[in-house]
């Protein structure tokens, strides 16, 4: 894909924005004028970016990648459209469904709601970066074994959320799995299986919720 380079565009500095909208709103909200003053002084030292393409360096799955992107390009768009890393999916594009979940220094984030330019200097891990040498991770293996996926479009997001949970908390309760996956939506209805997979990856096996009974055996 060729990068577009708009010649003109609206450029608003963070300082100008804070001056116009920030002070009164923030002050009214919390009365923390000192904090606002601090923000303003920080903003003074910031460089303006854009609106044209700027050099951006991302660390994705332990690889350093250099790009030229408009500052308004999201991390998700950078990954998918500019780097061909299509594991993270665009579903809602506004931080409600979790299909775009990636790890930023180990913490799960919505990559649709972070600008690529903001993700510089952080280690970004996508679903492609989990399995090493073709060996599925325990979480990925559990998702396959428990059939915690159908169409699979939400699956990368769930795998990342569960992976992040188990790294922090290797023995979660079902309640903790629910909280970890609260930011992920699935439309096919794989939730019960995602729960089983998360617990299985943590070493807890759960009983099947299905029984096959021969119709002929019924009275």
């Amino acid at each position, binding site marked *: 894909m060729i990068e577009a380079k708009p010649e003109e565009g609206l450029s608003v500095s963070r300082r100008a924005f804070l001056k116009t909208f920030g002070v009164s709103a923030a002050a009214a909200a919390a009365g923390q004028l000192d904090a606002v003053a601090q923000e303003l002084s920080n903003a003074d030292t910031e460089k303006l970016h854009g609106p044209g393409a700027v050099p951006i360096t991302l660390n994705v799955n332990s690889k350093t990648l250099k790009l030229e992107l408009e500052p308004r390009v999201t991390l998700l768009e950078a990954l998918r459209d500019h780097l061909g890393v299509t594991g993270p999916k*665009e579903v809602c594009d506004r931080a409600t469904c979790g299909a775009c979940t990636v790890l930023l220094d180990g913490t799960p984030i919505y990559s649709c709601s972070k600008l690529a330019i903001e993700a510089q200097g952080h280690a970004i891990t996508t679903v492609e970066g989990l399995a090493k040498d073709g060996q599925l991770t325990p979480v990925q293996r559990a998702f396959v074994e428990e059939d915690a996926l159908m169409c*699979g479009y939400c699956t990368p997001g769930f795998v990342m959320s569960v992976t992040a949970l188990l790294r922090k908390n290797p023995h979660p309760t079902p309640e903790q799995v629910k909280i970890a996956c609260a930011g992920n939506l699935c439309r096919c209805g794989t939730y*019960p299986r995602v729960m089983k997979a998360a617990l299985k990856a943590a070493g807890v096996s759960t009983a099947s919720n299905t029984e096959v009974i021969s119709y002929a055996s019924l009275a």
Partner: protein
Amino acid sequence: MPAWPEKRRWIGSRATRLDGPVKVTGAAKYTSDVQPEGWLCGMILRSKWPKAKIRKINLDKALKVPGIKAAVLARDGERTVRYYGEELAAVAGASKQACLDALKAIEVLVTPLPFVVREEDAREEPAPRVWEESPNLSKPSVNEKGDVDKAFTECAAVVEGFYTTAVQIHHPLEPHGNTVSWNEAGVTAWSSTQGVFSVRDGLASHLQVPQNQVRVICDYMGGGFGSKFGPGVEGGLAARLSKAAGAPVKLMLTRFEQALAVGNRPSSFQKIKLGAAADGTLHAFEFENYGTAGIGSGGATAGGGSGVELHAPYIYRVPNMRVKQSAVAIDAGSARAFRAPGSPPSCYGMEAIMDELAVKLNLDPVELRIKNDPSEVRRKQYRLGAERFGWKEKYRKPGTCPGVVKTGVGCGGATWGGGGNRRARAEAQVNPDGSVEVRCGTQDLGTGTRTLIALIAADTFGLTPDQIRVEIGDTRFPYGNDSGGSTTAASVCPAAYDACTKALAELQERTGVSDARGPNWPAACKKLGVNPLVMPGQWQEGLSSSGVGGVQFAEVEVDTETGFVRVRKVTCVQDCGLVVSKLTCESQVNGGIILGIGYALYEERVMDRHTGVVLNPNFETYKLPALADMPEIDIVLLDMPERGVIGIGEPVTIPTAAAIANAVANALGVRVPSLPMTPARVLAALGKTGGPA
């Protein structure tokens, strides 16, 4: 007549999904992930007027936006748009950002027209007409049997109700869309679709290109639920943009667009009257319903068309009945088939009035159903399900649960077809090194089609599923029908089995090996020499059937202070013929129930009467069930291998909302008469607010 093998090692097993590993690693390339060399991004400009005469659209400024390579009109000349979100034009450019800039630069000259977006407004004259040539409310279709008025006077009990269901949006997680390359070599489209052949034929006709010049590919797709047949307006636009730009164009819709223009389940407004003898035998039934399929109601499809018409009295038989149904057009996107079209609202209304009857006659709701349900299978399912669910222990008189948080139970039954399509084809290729390829044009919606084919081939050849390569989702492979009506498994499995059994017979004949299966396989294949063996197969009678029954039980708790409903448990008993893949079959049952929970409690498209827009076009405001909402789900699959393969996708979503609604009524002692049963509606039913009931 052919029969499934007596000894089944893989068929019916819990073997894992063939494409599980590629889906958990991000390696599976969905339509939205395909990036052919030099691809451009495409986006659509949609009407921001719910109704308007489009005078002129000027694309010049859009074409000057840096990075933009093409811009096309959705339609030439003056036209009328009839809903907020109707397609006006489309652009293709080097980046999404360039496209966003270009959409803003398109100039549209319009004359706004009066519009109407609510069913109750649209049906009243003189509401603005959606289609100028006909009234919004269609002439009712009438189905009458016996002497219904006289019959009601003969009943020991008569109950009446008015129940409504909201418009539900499909919202597959992968949006609708295509990546299309149209050049001298022809048209290649990667489509997120439920029917590669329907996309091929639709594109060929729209673009005036021979069908053999159009190839449609769908390796992986992220859900459809009935809304992804044919290329859609967006598919045609992507193709035209590709030709104009001289490059492949990927045009995937946004989540907002999904809520406007690519289908929904019609609403229903059901007025029901049911009468029965003292022992509960149904005697008289009167049903009046209207609903909207958006602009799909009215105009050329007047008369209750576009899926508005419900099945009444659904699974029951009543000797005297009068059923009147009509459709009402509104200025909103058209309905499309949605997982078990027509059935969830039919089941909801009918099972609600059945419970009202049970209360009036002081009968157990399960017993009332067993008395009246004409299906022996379902009657047995009710007995089995009631026992597993603990119905007798849990059921009490409506509204008698003490405390602020009240519990209740309910049930409902369903039917569906799910038979095979006779035109389905497949082909099996046995290579001299013993490896096997099975090809079929069909697509996998996430139901596990690849896996089913591999299990069948493995059992036929005495191999393991990982030795089978299954190739699907391509119009260059043998014909596979559209995935609609839960027909894919019952179509594709017999065709694949036919190809494999014939390939085995041919292999044995050619090589002189009397039983080439299992341990003899490598040696037999080696005798083929240099040429692989390719054998076509087709759907065969006797390997599949149609017609399933299922019942579900639900237990809920309702907070009478907040109005919040929580489903505690769902028990599902479902017959499904020969279970080919246990694991993926169970997943589909879970999925159907969960969609039903959304229909019962959360999902509703909200239209704004004053601006004509969809007020909740995203997941912040259009609520889907989430992991934390999951009840305990108990599933019983009734195995009937002698019936062969039957589809499972749709029947399991039908009775869930009905069972939940009855459970809520049982908990409260009053009925929440509308789906979804939001906290506001629950509180209104309890008389605690002035909100909508």
